[in-house]
């Protein structure tokens, strides 16, 4: 069973359905016992970094999520990916889950912000499992992005500066764009994530 962390940040119906369509049982929960029983943890999220961390802390989930990420496949999507990092500079400096070293900061570009729309991925050579997605289009909606060590970066997109699109550190994955809104490409990415962590 895949558990999607339900902490009141954004609509998760389509994320849930995307996994169900791949043939998985999904539960939407903020109950620690259910999260502990799950095979995979998915942390979704839309909105502000600070509000999201406050929601996680007020539900007493922060330390549990950190502990779960050390033992199970863990996927952060959109804001959920940003929460994986050390801190964010959105509004004010706010600490994240610190599962991957890095800081979330505003995109530096002359193009329009937010970065909204379909953009093309460039996959890093070290991440073979995702190589087939090189030049694939995915749907982004965000204004802030993660600055992290190149060794964690699986995919980037170009938007006046390189945008960190996918990250990985061991069994912890992050996807900045919306796989659940990225048509067949998005479904394939989720499938690859599930295959990667099952081996």
């Amino acid at each position, binding site marked *: 069973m895949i558990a999607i962390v339900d902490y009141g940040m954004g609509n998760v*119906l389509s994320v849930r359905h995307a996994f169900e369509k791949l043939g998985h049982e999904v539960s939407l929960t903020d109950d620690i016992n259910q999260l502990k029983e799950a095979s995979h943890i998915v942390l979704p999220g839309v909105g502000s970094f600070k509000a999201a961390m406050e929601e996680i802390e007020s539900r007493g989930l922060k330390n549990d999520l950190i502990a779960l990420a050390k033992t199970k496949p863990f996927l952060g999507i959109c804001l959920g990916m940003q929460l994986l990092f050390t801190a964010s500079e959105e509004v004010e400096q706010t600490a994240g889950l610190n599962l991957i070293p890095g800081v979330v900061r505003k995109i530096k570009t002359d193009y329009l912000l*937010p*970065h*909204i*729309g379909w953009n093309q991925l460039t996959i890093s050579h070290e991440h073979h499992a995702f190589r087939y997605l090189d030049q694939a289009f995915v749907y982004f909606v965000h204004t802030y992005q993660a600055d992290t060590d190149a060794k964690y970066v699986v995919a980037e997109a170009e938007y006046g500066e390189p945008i960190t699109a996918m990250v990985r550190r061991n069994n912890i994955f992050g996807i900045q764009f919306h796989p659940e*809104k990225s*048509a067949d490409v998005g479904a394939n990415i989720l499938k690859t994530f599930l295959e990667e962590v099952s081996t």
Partner: protein
Amino acid sequence: MIAKRIIPCLDVKNNQVVKGTNFVGLRELGDPIEMAKGYSEQGADEIVFLDISATNEARQTITEMVKKCAVNIHVPFTVGGGVRTIDDVTRLLQAGADKVGMNSAAVVNPDLIKQSSERFGNQCIVVAIDAKKFEDGWHVMTHGGSKDTGIDAIKWAKQAETFGAGEILLTSVDADGVKTGFDLPLTQAVVDAVRIPVIASGGVGHPDHFAEVFKKTDVSAGLAASIFHENTYTVNEVKEVCKREGVFIRET
């Protein structure tokens, strides 16, 4: 780089896609979810649903449609039509819409844009502007393009951005239904006035019209209804023409 978007628009009434918004001689074209699915399979980058039902009871039907759409359609979709209050915005976003469009209500009460974008983020608030050319410039029109507010459309686009709009859906009342192409001067004037994406709408009769608006203006997206519904052209055909003309589009 971000790809230019091709967006089919569906007018919905009583859970049916209907042709035309003028309320006269409406023809039912099909189930909105099935049609949206078909368009997304053809490569539509986004879908816009416009609720043209006139009563509150009918609005509940739209909420149900949005819920179904959220689990069945795997590209972003916007829902507009009859959005008057923050509760309408909340209801549609909670049902699973990616973005909510507002038109006349935002003109009467710009605070609706502010409240909605503060609560949900400006990326999901689309302000729709229907503009018509007069001697002194373009005016904002309401009531399906029939009522002149006297408000300058370019100034209104700027104000909408300041209030928190994340995107402008710009329809040329003059070009709408004429099928001779998008209103290029109006489109570029609004694109130049704001720093948020603009979607051009009104006037498409041929795939070339999409290539033209992308090459001659800096607009982010183009929207059309009838050329797709009447099966005159598929989304794919429009994309092939754009690609041939050197427009950067998403290939599927």
